[in-house]
C-alpha cells in the first residue's frame, strides 16, 4: 500500500499593478478595454 501525499499548489500572488498606476489611468480602464485581434482572421 503506497502512501499518497497531496500538496496544495501555492496560490499565485496577484501583482499589485493597479496600486502603482495613477488613479486616472485606473479609472479610464474601467469603462473601455481595447483588444488586439491582429492575426485572428475570420474569427470576428
Amino acid at each position, binding site marked *: 500500500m503506497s502512501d499518497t501525499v497531496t500538496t496544495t499548489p501555492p496560490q499565485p500572488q496577484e501583482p499589485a499593478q493597479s496600486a502603482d498606476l495613477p488613479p486616472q489611468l485606473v479609472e*479610464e480602464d474601467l*469603462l473601455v478595454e*481595447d483588444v488586439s485581434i491582429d492575426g485572428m482572421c475570420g474569427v470576428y
Partner: protein
Amino acid sequence: MPVLTSSAGVLDRALELAPDVSVRPEPFGALLYSFGTRRLSFLKDRRLLDVVQRLGDAPTARLACAAAGVPDEQLASYDAALARLLRTGLLRERTS
C-alpha cells in the same frame, strides 16, 4: 489631429461614431469594432453604450452623458472613456 491632455477633456466637443465602426450591444456593455483600424474595444458599461449611441444627436458629449443619466461624479470616467475612443478612432469629432 488634436492632442488630448488630461486637462482638456472631450465632453464639450461634438462627437459621433466613426462610420466604419460596428456596434454590438452585449449584456455587459458592447463590442465596438472598426473595420478601418481593425480595432476591437469593449465597452464595459451599458450606460457608456447609451452615451455613445446618443453622441450623434447631442450638441456635446456632455449633453449625451446627461441624457443617458450619467451622474456628475462619474463624468470624469466617461470623459476619459470617450477620449480613449476618440484617440483610437472609434469616435470622431462631428463637423455638423
